Structures are given as C-alpha cells and as structure tokens.
C-alpha cells in the first residue's frame, strides 16, 4: 500500500539515496538496517515528509503523492516516533498528544480540558499506559515517554480514513530489556491497526520483530530478506559490504601493552548517581573499552577522568598523581585528551577554522605572553592536515563545514599535536562513513604504538571487541566483568551481552 519507486535524494557532495525501492503492506512490520551513514535517516525523512525526493515517486494505495512537510504526510497516515524524545517536556501528556491538533477540543475559542483528557486516555489505553493525562511530561520515565510518543502517533487512527504507516526510529535505545519486550508485544498487537517501519542498529531486535528486512548500504537497498530467511552474518556482510573481519578493526596491528606502568588508575571510584566502586588501570599502549547500555556509567567515567565530574569516593590517579583541583584544565595539562560523542557541539567549535580548532586546547604552546604566533599555528595545521589526510581546501576553512570524518580528524589532531597520551574516545566513529571509520581505527592503533593509553566507548559491540585489549562490562553503574581481548582470542558478542543486561 505504501511504496517508494526509484527514489533519489542528493545533497551537495553526497548522493544520499540511489534509486531506492521500498514497499510496505498492510499490517506488516518492516525492518530497516544499515550502518550509520548508509542512508537510513534520509530515507525515513523522505517517508515522513521532512525531505522531498529529487527523483522517483512515492505512492500510497497506488496514487502518487508528494509531501511538502511532515504535516501532509500525517494527513496520509504516516507518522513518526522519533529516536530523540520529541515530547515537549514542559507540557502535559495530553497537550503533547494533541499538539497542533487541539482544534477538535475547542469550543468558542476555549479548550475543553476534560474532553481532551478523555480523548488522551483513550489513546493511552491503546499503548496500555495507565497515567494521568494531565501529568507534566518531564515527570515520566523514558520508557513511558516512548509509549506516549507512540500514543501520539496513533491519534492518526481517528483522524485518517486510510491505513497507517508508523516509523519507529531506534525506539529501544533508551529502554531496558523488559521495556523492549513490552514495546515489541505492543507493536505486534497494533499491527491490526497499522504497519510499522522499524529502524534499529540492534540487529537481534530487528530480526526478532520484523516480517521483512531492508538492508541499506551507501544510499542503496542492497538486500531485502524475509524474516525466515534472515541470517545475521549474511546481513552483516551486506551491510558492511565485506566480511567484518580482523582486517576491519586492524587487529593485525594490535600490539601487547606495557603493563608495568599505569597512566590512569581508578581505585574504587564512585560518583553519586552515576557509578560506584569502579577500579581499573589504563596502561601505555592499551585500548580499554567500557561496554554497557546507555546510562550504565560509561560516559560518566570518561568525564571523571577528564576532571568534569568529582569522584565522591575512591581515588583517581592520572600518571601517578591524584587531581589537585578537579577540572578539565588540569586534566589537559596532564596529557588527557577528550573526544566527545557530540562532535559538532563539544568536539569542534563550529565557526572557528581548522588551525584555531587544532590549537584550542594548547594555545599556550603557540603564544608568547598571551600573544598568539599564528604562523606557527598554521604550520601545525598544515602538517596535520597532510599527516591525517584531512580533506579541507585550506587551514581557513570553518570546521563546521567539514564532513564528520574530517571533523573527527581535526579533533584527534588537536589532542595528538598537543602531546596528549591519554585519550578518552566517546563514540569516535559515530556517524562516520566506512572509510572514515577505518581511518579512525588506524589512528587508534598508531596512537597505541606511540605509547598512548585509550579509554574507548565504542559505537557498536563489534567495534568494542575488535579494537580493545581490555573490556570492562558495566551495568547500572556497577562493574560486571573484565575481558581480555588479545588478537585472535577476542570475547564473543554473546559473552558481553550476557553481562550487559
């Protein structure tokens, strides 16, 4: 009933969707998977009307349609449940559910709150959520919010005559295991009312829930597999376009680390509300990976090493000495470099050029009495542009205008050129295309060879396993299990997942 025929979408410099065919039938659950940057999100945006395709056609029940905005897509029964919470937290649940469609409850310009609450309760019942619709959304848990979002989309049922298509974008990323199962059983029940497009990077979940799975790579649909014929390895192969093998994560370049010294030492460290009783040593040449679900304390540990969080208990030592004043300046001075997950917000300064970004953490090295030696800055930038083959027209280019991979290289160059030897990498490959990822993997190995220690929070479990010497599994802020991962003897996905949830 809903179909995309040879849909094309181009952005300056990127061919984001290449002649994509896609269809979904009534009551079907279709999975959509692909690496970051494979075109999933662009495809979704085309489906729910945020982008208009440059070529090809979109048909609903055989009729060609063209959505100018999400609202028009909604009028055709297409709704979206967003990955990042799209509820407005200072509004009540019912206001969120009917945001933009309040008119039905308005009489003579006055909102009838009782009627809206009643209607909201009706929607909440569909998702089996028993809460007061006049609760302010900020008071709900993430799982509850997710269900409210689903309820909000399901209001389409009353508004639209035709069939519903609901997109679920990574709906499980903030949910616990039981909540995920609840959501899945709910979605299965709801197939009597709507079709679902399910987007997730968790392969097992997609396999479990979907009737058919679309596999995307580089803006193309490379395979469509039925539920029964699905095979994880085969799909993974298609997604990545080659064997996800030792080569990919540069395992052959993994050298044993020097266990005699500790760059970072955590001794029974705890930060209230984030994690507690965590101990580990980070050695020169070691990649130590923190594995766990969202909220397991991974990020908080990185922030503690960087001096942004003050430990409540235990001691943190950086190169044998505890912090004198816990702050980022001290961490940087001791050689800690932080590559944050939110690259565009925390990694680079959007609005500053390449050399300005590169010396941001080490301006003191390029200044005499506070006066900058800009010539030297540029020379440094040029050297690293060459060394890491950063694609930029010149050193004056605004970093905000570089591609994600090149931005990440600038961030890494910033710390490496400043002489950092403890790197905190938070999702360093998030949103990068495969080539750029491989560059990052190469760089990680290179840094280890130079004697640096790396604490990594990886984008995927495979990445964590492939890259690390040591894996610490965390759950709810508590240490679960330590794995050693020498080349050729890596722990399996199952080993880790087992301890994560």
């Amino acid at each position: 009933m809903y179909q995309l025929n040879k849909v094309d979408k181009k952005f300056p410099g990127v061919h984001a969707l290449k002649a994509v065919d896609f269809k979904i039938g009534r009551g079907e659950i279709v999975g959509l998977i692909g690496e970051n940057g494979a075109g999933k999100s662009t495809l979704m945006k085309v489906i729910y009307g945020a982008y208009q395709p440059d070529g090809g056609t979109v048909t609903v029940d055989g009729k060609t349609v063209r959505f100018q905005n999400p609202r028009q897509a909604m009028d055709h029964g297409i709704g979206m449940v967003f990955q990042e919470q799209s509820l407005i937290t200072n509004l009540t649940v019912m206001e969120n559910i009917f945001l933009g469609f309040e008119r039905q409850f308005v009489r003579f310009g006055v909102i009838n709150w009782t009627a809206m609450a009643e209607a909201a309760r009706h929607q909440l019942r569909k998702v089996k959520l028993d809460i007061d619709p006049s609760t302010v959304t900020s008071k709900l848990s993430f799982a509850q919010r997710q269900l409210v979002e689903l309820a909000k989309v399901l209001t389409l049922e009353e508004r639209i005559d035709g069939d519903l298509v609901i997109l679920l974008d990574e709906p499980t990323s903030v949910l616990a295991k039981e909540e995920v199962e609840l959501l899945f059983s709910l979605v299965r029940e709801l197939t009597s009312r709507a079709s679902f497009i399910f987007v997730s990077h968790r392969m097992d979940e997609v396999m479990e829930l979907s009737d058919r799975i679309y596999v995307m790579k580089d803006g193309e649909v490379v395979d469509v597999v039925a539920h029964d014929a699905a095979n994880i390895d085969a799909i993974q192969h298609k997604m990545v376009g080659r064997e996800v093998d030792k080569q990919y994560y540069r395992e052959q370049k993994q050298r044993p680390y020097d266990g005699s010294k500790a760059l970072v030492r955590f001794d029974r460290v705890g930060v209230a509300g984030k994690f507690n009783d965590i101990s580990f040593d980070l050695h020169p040449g070691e990649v130590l990976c923190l594995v766990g679900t969202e909220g397991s304390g991974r990020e908080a540990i990185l922030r503690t090493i960087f001096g942004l969080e003050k430990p409540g208990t235990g001691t943190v030592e950086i190169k044998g000495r505890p912090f004198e004043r816990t702050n980022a300046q001290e961490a940087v001075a001791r050689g800690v470099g932080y590559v944050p997950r939110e690259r565009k917000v925390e990694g680079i300064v959007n609005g500053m050029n390449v050399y300005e970004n590169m010396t941001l953490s080490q301006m003191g090295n390029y200044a005499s009495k506070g006066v900058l030696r800009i010539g030297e800055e540029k020379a440094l930038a040029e050297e690293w542009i060459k060394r890491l083959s950063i694609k930029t027209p010149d050193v004056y280019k605004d970093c905000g205008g570089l591609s994600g991979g090149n931005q990440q290289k600038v961030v890494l160059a910033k710390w490496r050129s400043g002489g950092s030897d403890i790197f905190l990498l938070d999702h360093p490959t998030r949103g990068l295309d495969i080539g750029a990822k491989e560059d990052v993997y190469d760089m990680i190995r290179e840094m280890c060879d130079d004697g640096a220690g790396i604490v990594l929070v990886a984008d995927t479990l495979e990445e964590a396993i492939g890259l690390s010497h040591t894996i610490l599994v965390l759950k709810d802020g508590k240490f679960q299990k330590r794995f050693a991962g020498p080349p050729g003897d890596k722990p399996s996905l199952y080993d880790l997942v087992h301890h994560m949830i």
Partner: protein
Amino acid sequence: MAKTLTADKAGTGFSIRRETLVKWAPLLVLIVLCAFFAVMEPRFLSTRNFARILIAASPALMVAIGVTFVIIMGSIDLSMEGTVSVCAVAFAFCFLWLGGTLASWAWLALPFAMLVGAVLGFVNGLIHVKLRIPSFMASLAMGFVGTGLAMVMTGGDRIRIEDALFRSLLTERILGFPLMVYVAGVFLLVAWFIQTRTTLGRNFYAVGGGEDLAIASGLNVNRVRVLGFTVAGVFFAVGALLAVGRIGIAETATGNNFMFLSITAVVVGGTALWGGVGGVWNTLVGVLIVFVIGNGMVVIGLPGYVQDGVLGILVILAVILSTDRKSISFVK
C-alpha cells in the same frame, strides 16, 4: 541565552521540594517584603497605601503581561515603550476627535487603541518572523519606530484628556481602590484565560519548550509567534490606556521606562528568559514586588537611591533562587 539539558531523573523527593520552593519563591519574597515594610511602618498596610501601589502598578502590569507571553515563547519584545506611546497618542487623538467624552461615540477610541496595539505587535512579529531577524533586534528597532511615530503624531506636544468619565478610572473608587485597578484585574483574568484555556496560549508554551519539536508535531510556529507578538501589542495598548487614565496626559514620553521595568518584573516573578515556564500570575507577583519595594522604601523613609540597589540585588536573588542549577550546563 541559556542552554538547558533535560534533567535525567525528575520526581525524586528533593526535586519536588525544590520545585515547590521555586514555584512559590516569588510570592514568598513578596509576602516577606510586605511584612518587613509593615513592621517598619504600619501605615504601609493601609488601604490608601495599597491603592497607591496598585495605581502605579496597573499600567506596568499590563505591559509586563504582554511581554510575558513573548518571553514564554523564548523570544523577547523590547518594543513596548514605542507601542505604549503610539497607543496612548492614537487613543487621545481619536478620543478627542470623536467628541472627547466616553458618553459619546468617543468610547470607540478604546477599542481603536487596542487595535493599534495589535497592528504594531503584528508588524513586529512579521518583521521578526518573515525577515528572520532575532526578536531582540526586530522589536528594539520597532520600539524606535513606535516612539518616532508618536513623536510625529504629537509633534512633541502633550495631549490632555480631561473627560471626567474617562478620568473616573482614577477618581472613582470602589472599596477604596480606583476603577483602573479593577480594569487591570479583569485584563489579568483575560490573560490567564488566554494562557490556560486557549490553543494559542498553550502553543506559546509548546514553542518555548521545544521549538523544533513543535514544528515536527505540525505546529505552525511562525503563526504562533506572530500572534504572540500581536497579543502582546494588545496588552501594551491596555497598559497605555491605563497610563493615560492615570495621569490624564498622552505624549511621546508615556511609554518611557516601561521596557526594563516590565522585563525586570517578569524575571523577578519567575518566568525564565529562555522560555517555556512561568505565566501571568508570576508576572503579577513580579510587578507587585517591584512596586512594593518602590513604595515601601518611600513609606519607611529611605532615600530613593537605595531602591534601585535593593531592586537590583533582589532581581539577582530571585533568579538564583528559581534556577535549578543541575539542569543547566551553561548560561550566557
């Protein structure tokens, strides 16, 4: 001017207490202030004195309520001085032209002034939204245009309104308070009604709470914005009418001092400049705090200059008290 991150876990015991405290802090400050002045000088508590406070506060309250809606949207409106002046002058001309007394067709000047306010607000909103100029600059420039327009209309002269019926706003008292206080009260209720009972009022909160999300939900945010500035313009006009009613004169200077006064009051009342929280009751409390300080200082015989300093300190304290530091990553 502030970036907020959503707090991870709301609803714990402490945060409820804190929320309650933050919610009632402005009112608490007001009560403490009143108690303080009353102890220092019992005459502060007299009806006469309260009437004095409320007379002075009424026009400012209307202006502050207008800007409250804009601030809830996360924008700001700095055009009030100009708008108030134009509305006051437009009212005066229209009123005198139509007969000069409320007992004739001249009463039409009242809705006319509000219409003028609405038009100015509408234009202000359009400039902001259509030309994509941040509201700070757009409304600031519109303020110049307004003040200038009032100057052109009056040629710098003062216009006296001597109609006894219109001046009864000030002269006629019920239970010791002049009519204008009741008029302000009625419009306060209207504002409260808009805030809680109309789609537009709720949409102000949606825009202030998360503009991108509101757009994604299919809300026509630009329309809400323009209407927000229009509503603000109407309330500025009501403020202008009360200001004229209070002193019986309409001139270019009628709007003077309203800008920082009203924004200070809104902030002291607990409406955050980054939008999404607060409302007209907060603004009422904020306006009262500002005027009680002014009045109380005089009543207990402190020199006028102390008043500014105390107000300044109080403004800072009010914002510190009502800010949940844990949910904010940085402030500019």
